[in-house]
């Protein structure tokens, strides 16, 4: 399925009406891995959330292939995320009281008929990420690296075409960060997923196809690697 | 302490809940009434007087009819039941307390000695109507017949409020 990203003339405003992000134009071919860099608070996360349809758009359009998400209803955008998007966050956002498998297959609780395949996908992902698929332990006992891998398994369980990750390595030590980013990039590339990662981490930038930059709420386009 | 409180509650309740003792003079002595005022509300058969037949408003299938009967004749009579167009069945019932819950048991007959009075009243005797065909509304009246061994006595039954404990006397000019 062709889910090329095309953003044009995008403007996102904060609660006070001030523009917090503008994007003249951003195009990403399907299967590309893109790093988004920029100072803290510049709008990297806002860009990711906008691409996921989580923030209201003041002007412009966000298209994923034939899906104009800026024109969809809230329920329509939720359905789009459910079907096509996997998300990873800086501090994992797991349900600490649940097991790795229950966390990774969370979408099964609200995805009706796809419940079985999501659970299988989650179990397979956990295994590929070197985690026990279900030993009854809750994730509260896991290390940071293990937790983020559970979050990655959750993002990939429903086999989405797009992965959006917000500072996925920022809470991990160097070794865990490197291992995680290796896994994430490998799994995304294997099945031709589009991967967008907002990150400060140079090691992340180095492993991606493209590096783009957001400064002061303005999308500034591609940056030459190793610049 | 608690014992005293319980009995005090029961005793205090009495003054509020109980009908006046039977020795109170009958305020419906004929001398106090204008002629014809109660023409619908009293009936007589060979010295047997019935006065103030009443029931409670209900949309249920059963209704209890109460009345005061006075045997003014010089012979014993027996109340055997009754009939009415509004109900399928009319029978005499007596109140009993079963497991703390009120219940009514059918009685085959109710003798009434010469010169005596029989009060059909709440928590006592009543005529039970079963298969009541229509809802009874406060202020309605319907006809019924009391069956005595000496004959039938026709009279009007007044429908009182759903929670009434006695016949209303006020303001019923016909």
């Amino acid at each position, binding site marked *: 399925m062709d889910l090329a990203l095309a953003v044009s003339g995008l403007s996102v405003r904060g609660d006070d009406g001030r523009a917090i992000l503008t994007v003249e134009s951003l195009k990403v071919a399907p299967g590309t891995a893109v790093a988004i860099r920029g100072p803290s608070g510049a709008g990297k996360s806002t860009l990711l959330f906008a691409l996921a349809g989580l923030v209201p758009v003041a002007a412009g359009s966000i298209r994923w292939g034939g899906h104009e998400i800026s024109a969809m209803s809230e329920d329509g955008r939720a359905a789009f995320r459910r079907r096509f998007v996997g998300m990873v966050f800086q501090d994992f956002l797991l349900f600490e009281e649940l097991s790795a498998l229950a966390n990774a297959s969370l979408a099964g609780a*609200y995805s009706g008929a796809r419940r079985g395949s999501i659970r299988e996908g989650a179990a397979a992902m956990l295994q590929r990420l070197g985690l026990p698929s279900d030993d009854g332990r809750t994730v509260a006992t896991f290390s940071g690296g293990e937790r983020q891998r559970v979050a990655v398994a959750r993002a990939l369980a429903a086999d989405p075409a797009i992965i959006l990750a917000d500072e996925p390595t920022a809470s991990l030590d160097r070794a865990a960060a490197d291992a995680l980013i290796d896994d994430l990039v490998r799994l995304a590339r294997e099945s031709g997923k589009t991967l967008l990662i907002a990150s400060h981490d140079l090691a992340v930038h180095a492993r991606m196809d493209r590096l783009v930059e957001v400064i002061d709420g303005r999308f500034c386009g591609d940056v030459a690697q190793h610049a | 302490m608690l014992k005293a409180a319980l009995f005090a509650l029961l005793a205090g309740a009495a003054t509020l809940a109980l009908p006046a003792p039977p020795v109170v003079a009958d305020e419906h002595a004929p001398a106090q009434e204008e002629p014809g005022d109660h023409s619908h509300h009293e009936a007589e058969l060979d010295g047997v007087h019935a006065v103030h037949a009443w029931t409670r408003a209900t949309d249920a299938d059963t209704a209890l009819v109460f009345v005061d009967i006075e045997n003014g004749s010089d012979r014993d009579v027996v109340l055997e039941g009754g009939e009415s167009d509004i109900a399928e069945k009319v029978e005499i019932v007596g109140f009993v307390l079963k497991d703390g819950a*009120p219940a009514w048991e059918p009685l085959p007959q109710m003798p009434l000695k010469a010169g005596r009075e029989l009060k059909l009243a709440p928590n*006592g005797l009543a005529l039970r109507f079963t298969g009541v065909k229509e809802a009874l509304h406060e202020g309605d009246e319907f006809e019924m017949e009391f069956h005595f061994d000496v004959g039938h006595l026709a009279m009007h039954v007044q429908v009182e409020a759903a929670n009434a404990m006695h016949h209303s006397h006020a303001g019923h000019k016909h």
Partner: protein
Amino acid sequence: MPEALSDFWYALSPTAQDALLFALLLAPAILLGLVVVAGYRPFALVRAMLWRFRWTSLLFILLIAVSVGIGVGLIAQERGLRQGTARAADKFDLIVTAPGSEVTMMLAAVYLQPSDVPLLSGRVFNDIAGSENVSLAAPIAFGDSFEGAPVIGTTAGFVTHLSSGALAEGRMFAEHEEAVAGARVPLAIGETFTPAHGVGPSAEEDGHQGHVYRIVGRMPASGTPWDRAILVPVESVWEVHGLASGHAPGSEARLGPPFDADYFPGTPAILVHADQLWANYALRSQFTTAETMAFFPGAVLASLHALLGDVRQVMSVMAVVTQVLVTAGVLTGLIILMRLFARRLALLRALGAPRRFVFAVVWSYAAFLIGAGALLGIAVGFAASAIISRIVTARTDILIRASLSWPEFQLVAGFVSLTVLLALVPAFLTLARPVVKDLRG
């Protein structure tokens, strides 16, 4: 109500009506639950939330349980009191006394709460005893006591009637100085006692010096104040007070009816028993005269019960208001709790969970608190009723049993339906929260 429906309703047995009413009251809660969670499996997340906020959840459940328990306990207690007092009056079909307050007379003759009351003459007693259809007429002569236990003068026929035909132990009194004890009188067979004149603190302990009774039999337990009573021949009560024996000179040794009206000192109350209910009503009509009052303790009780019921209803309304207020408080607490959980709920939205799923999670959590609180509340109410019943039984000697019945379950079903409906509010409110802001924490 349409006729076909009301016909259907009245054709049902009382149990079926109760069960149906219960089902109808609970149905909104169940239907709402089915609609809210349809297609989803929110329970793992609800479990996770319950565990995360376990102490708060437990507190909320306890609050609901206590408020529900008050309502359940009230209904159960009122029924227990009704049934207990009615059971204690079971053996007393018709009581004849001098005209006065039916309640005072009933408390004295049935519940052995003594009063000074006028006496009925021997002529009246013989009139009653000799009436058609009377199978038992017995004097109930109260006034004396022994260490707090009322000493009642009566006849062997009454003792047999009260013990349903068979004593638990020993035999019937056959002499003037013999007595039959109630089940809980602390005197063994063969022991003797001297009655005091009067009852309670003002009783004159040595008023009847020289008169000694010996216990020869014991009645079975009845769960009534009579379990504490000592029954003696009425003749001996009269003799102890220096009165005639009820029998003509020459036959003073005789016990029980017939009595000689000329030597009958009087009795405060007479129990009348007829085998047929209609005969009881005929006798009441017959003995409602200028010098006698005849009443059914059951009917007097029913009037008192109606009042007790009114009091209970008023208190029930307050209990229901309390329940709803407590639940509203809990649901308000829930809204605050949901703020603590807001990041996880926002996460669900970010991952693409439908809004209705998030709604279902929050509602199910609230519904679980309400359901668990309601169930626990039934247990709390029953336990409270059991404890109060035990205390009342100990103090009044009227056996009060705690039980649970349909009205309590109907109340709880109505409560659950109403409050799970209220729980839609916090569920709606969580949907209004900003996803991205909550996600960033």
